[in-house]
């Protein structure tokens, strides 16, 4: 059986890649994709714990189903916000969206 630590390490690496993309991306849509990477890393952790620590009841899988449904709603709303702000500002540069800065 594969050790549990391998899955946790893989999820940690995916999470770190997602955070790097979230902070350094200039394109708005790439920021949205990085958020999806973060959510997938969390899901992978949930499923690994579900299989190794509590394999008989599948509670972690139910959690993962909830996370997937919330992620779908989140990406749809994020994309609608991006479309609205793109129509307003005519750019996709994150640095140009500084309307709320002082």
């Amino acid at each position: 059986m594969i050790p549990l630590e391998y899955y946790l390490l893989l999820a940690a690496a995916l999470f770190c890649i997602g955070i790097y993309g979230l902070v350094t991306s200039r394109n708005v849509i790439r920021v949205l994709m990085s958020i999806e990477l973060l959510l997938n890393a969390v899901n992978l952790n949930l499923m690994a714990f579900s299989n190794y620590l509590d394999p008989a009841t599948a509670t972690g899988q139910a959690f993962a189903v909830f996370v997937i449904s919330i992620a779908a709603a989140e990406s749809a709303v994020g994309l609608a916000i991006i479309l609205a702000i793109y129509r307003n500002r005519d750019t996709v540069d994150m640095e140009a969206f500084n309307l709320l800065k002082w």
Partner: protein
Amino acid sequence: MTLAEGVQLVSFGLLAIMVIGTALGVVLLPNIVYSAFLLGGVFISIAGLYVLLNAGFVAAAQILIYVGAVNILILFGIMLVNKNQPFSPVRRGWIRLFATGGVCLGLFALLATVVFGTSWQISSAVPAGDQATVLIGIHLFTDFLLPFELASILLLMAMIGDIVLARREILTDETPADAVSDALTLPERPRELVSATGETTED
């Protein structure tokens, strides 16, 4: 999963390499369309990992929802905001790159220390396997009933919010002046553009 030990390890290694490689491609490639397709690769590889983790139902849901819906939605978004603009370099942008890289590496080191420093209580119970689908259904309608209903309300709110956010204001009572050349366009309420270069007026 009834695979042999070595087969599981080799498939895990291949899937892990695919996940990390495609995720790096998503973050680092300059072309956003390539990034979107590689994001589909990330989702499919993670679905493979779910199959290795005895969760066939969630793997199928992952492919259906992420690859079939979210990834297509992101591709639509890319094509709707299809703007090929060169980004003006930020002043002292390399500080941000190196600081973020350092923070991410530090976070990874911290997580790895925690992962290897904790003694996990591995259960020896028999995995649910294909019975997991029934178990998830039982969970959703007994002890997770309230989150389930809240999720349905949240999805409804997200749908209505999307329509409100992304719609355009179409004027229905005006007919276009030139009926031939404007046959494929709808009259849209004029809106004022906020200048993208930043306001330098009042402070």
